[in-house]
């Protein structure tokens, strides 16, 4: 269920796997606070444990992020979703999809898995109430066939949370 597009994905290009290896080494030397990379031998899919930051609504809670890399990473953004159960947040759908511009239109190769993780944690930390997006049910129903969040046309309208 959580790996809809895994079988149809193309293997990483030379450039992509080279860059990911370097990112992984950098992560191991200098991991972002609050995150733990679950060691696997799959470079193309990272599973990362997120700990809610102390003093925020998500303190003491643990979630899992799944990061899938496209063949031409970093020319294309990685696909980042929460493995359900996803945190209750106005920009996170119950199927784990995250409405965050840098994962889609605003991605740039200057970003890294680590910087994306920090953005997601900061999005969680600045939330003032635990609730689902208003259109959660409709959106999740539309994604039932295992659609990737990267195929969604996102509207980024809220810059507060």
């Amino acid at each position, binding site marked *: 269920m959580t790996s809809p597009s895994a079988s149809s994905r193309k293997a990483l290009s*030379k*450039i992509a796997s*080279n*860059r990911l290896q370097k990112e992984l080494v950098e992560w191991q030397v200098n991991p972002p606070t609050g995150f733990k990379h679950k060691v696997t031998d799959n470079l193309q899919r990272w599973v990362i444990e997120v700990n809610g930051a102390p003093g925020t609504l998500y303190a003491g809670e643990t979630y899992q992020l799944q990061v899938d890399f496209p063949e031409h990473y*970093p020319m*294309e953004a990685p696909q980042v979703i929460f493995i359900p159960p996803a945190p209750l947040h106005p920009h996170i759908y119950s199927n784990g999809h995250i409405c965050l511009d840098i994962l889609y239109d605003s991605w*740039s*190769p*200057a970003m890294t898995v680590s910087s994306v993780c920090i953005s997601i944690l900061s999005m969680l930390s600045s939330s003032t109430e635990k609730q689902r997006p208003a259109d959660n049910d409709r959106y999740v129903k539309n994604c039932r066939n295992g659609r990737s969040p990267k195929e969604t046309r996102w509207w980024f309208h809220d810059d507060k949370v």
Partner: protein
Amino acid sequence: MTFFLTTLATVRTVYRVVEVCCTDSDSFVFLAVADYFQNFDTSRQTNMDVSMEFAEQNRCLELAKSSAYYRRIYSEVEEVGWEHLLKLQEDLTFLSFRLMDKKGREHVLEITLDKTYPKCPPLVSADVPYNFNLEWSTDSKLRDVVRQFQEHMDKLQDFWYTLDDIDRSLWVTDPKQPHHAISYRQINIGNDCYIMLFISASDPQALPECRFMGSDKKVNLLKETWRRRCKHWMKDKPFPENLASVLDIQLPQPQHVQKNEEQIECGICYAQNLPIDDELGMKSGSGTDYKCENANCNRAFHSVCLGDWLRSITTTRQSFGVLFGNCPYCSDPVAIKVSLEAKC
């Protein structure tokens, strides 16, 4: 826009000609034979003939003027030495020289000229913490600009010496790519604290202005120490030694290894060399060959990687085989030649 007004008298007529010169397109448009006084016959035909003849005359005048301008610039560049010339714009209104100071540091002097040069003094900019006042008269030449810049550099030797000393012996975290105009340094002083130092260009060995960064508790302690011990700052001691003695701590060493790597790795694929791959044609296995021109960014890229990225986003424009977009790091404009050989 500049307007010139010339008055010309011919035998029969007095024409007032307004010549409009567009500085941005360097084309000369002449507008109007605006106003004339005639004593004799005024057939339309004659008027047109005269004005066309006049246009022709003026074009020749213009060409003569610009060729004199070109000759002057070439001979003045010659005096400075072609080996110093770094850039020369096609219409010769912008040029830059690469010059060495006494200690062999490289500097780039950029000069913008007006078409009325040398009547109008050139505009000068360089990688210095503050600019010098150009002394200019109509018989001054480019070599006088260079000489005055060299004198200015001599005055700044102590300043650069101090900064080099800091860069050599302390852990500088910002600027990542220091250049000669930047007069601040952010230094990691250990214990998760940083100090931002502002070095005075005129008195670099003096107690600098500073700001501390870190947790409130630690910063307050540091400020207290600084206030108490700043009288221990001695102008004749090396800067790093002074800093350590005022802060009363051992300062961490610089992190050389990391710095070197950053300069040559591509900001997109993170590798120094592209993979060996037939698809890349001539570029297969080559190193980074493009640098962001923003001096504060200076990120290196493989033009192949940057080109691939620019092609993958919709905001990039392409014109005559050049891709125009923005640096993924600093968003400043970048332009990449589309390499044909990579595609064949």
